[in-house]
């Protein structure tokens, strides 16, 4: 018994570094953020008590609701096509024998490695201004109303943000879903084929139910990441999400309130609410996908 106990102590010692780091860089900032949400602080002058002022301010803040809407919209328009594309690709890759499959897989994954700043520059060159590539192309094709003022259109910039996110992330999602598919017992497929099932039937009746856990993982991580989108829209236009805040996400709003307007108390309040929104959305999607299982 004694030997076991002393071994357990070593176990704790080995996991200790993680918890120390987590306490300092994870828990402490969260507690500090809660504290800041009841303060008024510009970062330089002494903090003063604000009571519930920041929370009342949030209740009347249309801009925050607007940014939450932007974030959800950009995320949904990105996420649904992303999962569909990934499912189709994963099905093709796992059901059919394609030459150079790994080359395809790598190519689809590549956009994920490009930094958001490069993406911003790339899509600026393609669409920003009357001399941009897209406008030159449209003018050359004789489109009457060209050149278009793409970056002044809220709908277009929102769609473009979603498109870039889709383009960056569908390869990653494909890889994750394929990993889920490989973990399925091949004998299930064999049994299904012997019973005369078609490829589509096998995918819908066997693959899909068995990768539910993977899909839950993909959805929840995507919600968590998606509700915090910052770099792509901020680099596409600017941190204010121009034109007319069309692509200002909640994270960008927090940044602007903190570092542009120097309201750290209010920025903390907004981040706490965003944290709650993400928690609730993750919980709901988890429940929803689990319930279907029963």
């Amino acid at each position, binding site marked *: 018994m004694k030997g076991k106990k002393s071994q357990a102590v070593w176990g704790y010692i080995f996991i200790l*570094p993680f918890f120390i780091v987590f306490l300092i860089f994870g828990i402490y900032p969260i507690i500090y953020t809660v504290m800041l949400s009841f303060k008024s602080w*510009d*970062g*330089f*002058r002494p903090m003063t008590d604000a009571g519930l002022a920041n929370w009342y*301010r949030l209740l009347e*803040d*249309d*801009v925050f609701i607007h940014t939450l809407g932007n974030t959800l919209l950009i995320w949904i328009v990105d996420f649904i096509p992303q999962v569909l594309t990934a499912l189709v690709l994963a099905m093709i890759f796992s059901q059919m024998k394609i030459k150079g499959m790994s080359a395809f897989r790598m190519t689809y994954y590549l956009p994920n490695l490009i930094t958001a700043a490069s993406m911003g*520059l790339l899509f*600026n*060159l393609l669409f*920003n*201004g*009357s*001399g*941009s590539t897209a406008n030159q192309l449209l003018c050359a094709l004789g489109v009457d109303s060209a*050149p278009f*003022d793409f*970056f*002044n259109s809220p709908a277009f910039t929102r769609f473009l943000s979603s498109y870039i996110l889709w383009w960056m992330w569908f390869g990653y999602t494909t890889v994750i879903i394929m990993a889920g598919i490989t973990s399925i017992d091949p004998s299930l497929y064999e049994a299904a084929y012997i019973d005369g099932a078609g490829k589509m039937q096998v995918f819908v009746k066997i693959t899909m139910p068995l990768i539910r856990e993977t899909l839950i993982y993909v959805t929840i991580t995507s919600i968590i990441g998606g509700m915090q989108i910052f770099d792509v829209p901020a680099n596409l236009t*600017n941190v*204010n999400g*121009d*034109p*007319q*805040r069309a692509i200002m996400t909640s994270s960008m709003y927090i940044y*602007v*309130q903190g*570092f*542009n*307007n*120097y*309201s750290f108390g209010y920025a903390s309040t907004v981040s706490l609410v965003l944290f709650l929104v993400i928690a609730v959305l993750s919980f709901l999607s988890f429940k929803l996908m689990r319930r279907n299982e029963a």
Partner: protein
Amino acid sequence: MRRIGLFLLVMLTLTSPAFSAGASEEGGVVTLEVWSRGEEIKSFVPGFEASHPGIKVNVTVIPDAEMTAKLMTVIASGSGVPDLFMQEANYITYLVEAGVYADLREEPYNIGQYLDDVWQPVVDMGTDSTGAVRVLSWQASPGSVIYRRDIATAVLGTDDPAKIATMLDTPEEFLDVAAEMKAQGITMISSIKDLFDMMVAARTEPWVVDGKLVIDPVMIEFMDLAKTVHENGYDLGVDQWAPEWNAGVESDSLFCYILPSWGYQFVVKPAAVKTMGQWAIAEPPVPYINGGSYLGIWRETEHPQEAWEFFSYVCLNEDAQYEYAKQTGDYVSLKAVDERLAGEDGEAVLAGQNPYVTYNDEMSGDFNKLNTIYDSSLNTFFLNAVKAYYDGAGKDAAIAQFEADVRNAYPEIVIE
């Protein structure tokens, strides 16, 4: 054990003196820590170290967007604050008013006796609302119209800077010239933002007076000017620093940039290869100043004397600024240096024109002191409202949007 060793090694590195920013002293040599927003200040360091053997200067470059955040962290923690730090003109007023910089009028700095040598707008920018001088710059950034000589000659019949300046004197005349340019397939200006930076200087009152929002009539007029410019395609339709904005330098269809002296130094001059000798600089219809890096001394620096030596070398030493200007082509903050440079040879890019002559003329005029701590945000909000206006929102709706943005960002500002 190796992991624990590695962990200890990392912790040791993180807590070692090399990671804390404040000045350090070793063998009688003081090392000053300077946080800079750009590389330019490094040009002063070799000369300074050579003439001040007891002082070393360590410059850390931090981008504008991160500077304030990084300063907040070190100032809040009270350790690792650099001896000197700077910020861009649009953001400096906030730091100046926040009281993080030493008051340079006091001992041991006594800056008062030198201030007459510096262009007044630079001093104004560095002075807080109580009259304390907190920061100065080694640059002054007078505005200008940087235009193409060949296009001017072809369309307007002259490339003379004085004549071009007269042709652009009022908004009406400006629009007439823009229409003439358009008829020849030439775009008048690069960006509405360029125009805005100039027009915002035409106000008589700052954005906020006694806690109340002030929308100067000039700004309302600007809304219509911008709408006309945009609807007629007199601009490239991009923001500053967009790739197409930069590419305008070598294009055959852009007439001018309305930019401060740094616009010539950083945008036009380095890119002008095909258009070498085809550029000229004219005084802008509205004299204005925009940009510049402002430097100040941390109020609690342990080495005020050494910090002052470096500060005054950069901002007040004529020989140092002259050397710097010769190296970089920048327009500097000491009057005597700019006057000396105005007597020298002109620039090849400008077909021999000496830009210092034009800029000195402009700097000698009067400028309204308009800076507030809100400027960078409020300018952005207003420009957004202008865009909403030319995209079809009514003028009242656009102004209401501006006011809503101001209310959202700064609930303390009273809007009547």
